[in-house]
């Protein structure tokens, strides 16, 4: 695992990364307008309210789009080659890897249900997603 793949938390994103280390997916929700948003900020990106809080979300998502990378850069060969956009049940979209499935388009049907899982990157833990039907999801532990 190459060092450059290890994310570094900022004061604003630290609760997200602390959650991932505990095996929970935590994002922010605005108390003024009710919307969830991602990535972390000190304020709501929709209404600019600072009345926002961290919340553990369901970990359920759907597959929005993806590529299967056939030319991984040096140091990234151990990652899943499936680089995907997923939309969380709560609304926000994230970029992630799809794991727990052979990287074949036949196994990666757009809109398929996914569930969060976690993988190490150096001394950090990052959320990834796997097909909901494959079981062994760790996201709700």
């Amino acid at each position, binding site marked *: 695992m190459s060092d*450059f*793949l*290890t*994310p*570094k*938390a*900022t004061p604003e*994103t630290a609760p997200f990364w602390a959650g991932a280390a505990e095996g929970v997916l935590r994002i922010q929700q605005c108390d003024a307008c009710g919307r969830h948003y*991602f*990535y972390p900020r000190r304020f709501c990106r929709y209404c600019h309210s600072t009345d926002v809080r961290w919340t553990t979300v369901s970990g359920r998502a759907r597959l*929005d*789009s*993806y*590529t*299967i*990378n*056939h*030319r*991984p*850069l040096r140091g*990234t060969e151990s*990652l*899943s*080659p499936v*680089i*995907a*956009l997923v939309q969380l049940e709560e609304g926000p*979209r*994230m*970029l*992630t*890897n799809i794991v727990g499935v052979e990287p074949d*388009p036949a196994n990666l049907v*757009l809109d398929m249900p996914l569930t969060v899982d976690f993988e190490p*990157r150096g001394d*950090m833990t*990052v959320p*990834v997603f796997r097909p909901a039907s494959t079981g062994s999801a760790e996201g709700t532990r």
Partner: protein
Amino acid sequence: MTSMHGGDIAVIGAAETDELGVLPDISMIELHAQAALNALRDAGVAPADVDGLATAGPLGIEVAHHLGLTPRWVDGTSVGGSSFLLHVRHAAAAIAAGAADVVLITHGESGRSGTGARAYARGPASLTGQFEVPYGALAPYSTFTVPALRFLHDRGMDATDLAEVVVAQREWSSRTPRAMRRELVTADQVLAAPMVAYPFTKDMCCVVTDGGGALVLTRSDRAADFAGGERAIYLLGSGESNEATLVSQMEETTRFRAFQRSSAEAFATSGLTHADIDHLMFYDAFAHLPLYMLEDVGFVGHGESGAFVREGHTRPGGRLPMNTNGGGLAYTHTGMYGMFAIQEAIRQLRGEAAAQVPGLTTSFVQGVGMFFAASASLVLANRRP
């Protein structure tokens, strides 16, 4: 009263580096300089006449000092490959406001050879470093391409539609001696090329090259003071917009609203409609981008982009010639292609292109930068309205 639009500002010099392609023996900064010298010669402008400079990559002051210039106006707007379209727009505003009289815009990048290139590092605490890099989303071919499957899926399109973009543009590059990829191809051949990042095969991804280009702009009523004024190309309208620096944070995966906003402003400021446009230069780092642009800029309706390309409307002899140098997919792509899209529009409007389309009067240049982060649009013409 000079306006930034409506033809009051002219491009009086335009040139690329002597060569494009694999150029390990020339540094990035010298690619800027060679393009600048060529464009100033094309314009008939002396160094002392230049009082404005814009560039992206190195700082504007680095390029200015390297060229021995002391401009009173510098713009270093840096939004990836669309930067140079924004520089044209910003230079036009500056000239109209009297902040500069003669602006030089330069691009040079050793994107293939890395000679004298700047390190491109993204820290692990940057947004990209936290939310994209840990997933291997590093190279443009595995990041910029991620939304494409959804775009195709929602329109009942597939990878063949990406291949058809390549097929059409090779018809142009086959007539363009300076293009890197000049072989005619079929859709089946494009689909059978080595897979880079599914669904993108090698031919659906841009070439990677070294090279540069430069432009010289001034007020149209001053153009006649310079030799390049005889072949002046006029800026009728322009627009710019932006969205997310993270691909995952596009407002919608299947359309890029920044294309819609910047192109709408370019049309509104030019006073032209889609029917007035003779020629398109649509920035194509990857084959999905011209499809997004055809729809988002409004030349075709939702879901019609694939058929429009497949039916030949963008090819030689078609009613809307697009990417007539072969585009980033075939002509050249140093890493910031926007300069070359503008150069080809100007060659076509001057009647000097390798694959010249007869009878053009207008061209629409659409740029994209930093993946789906930035958009810029220009409406250019070879006569003042």
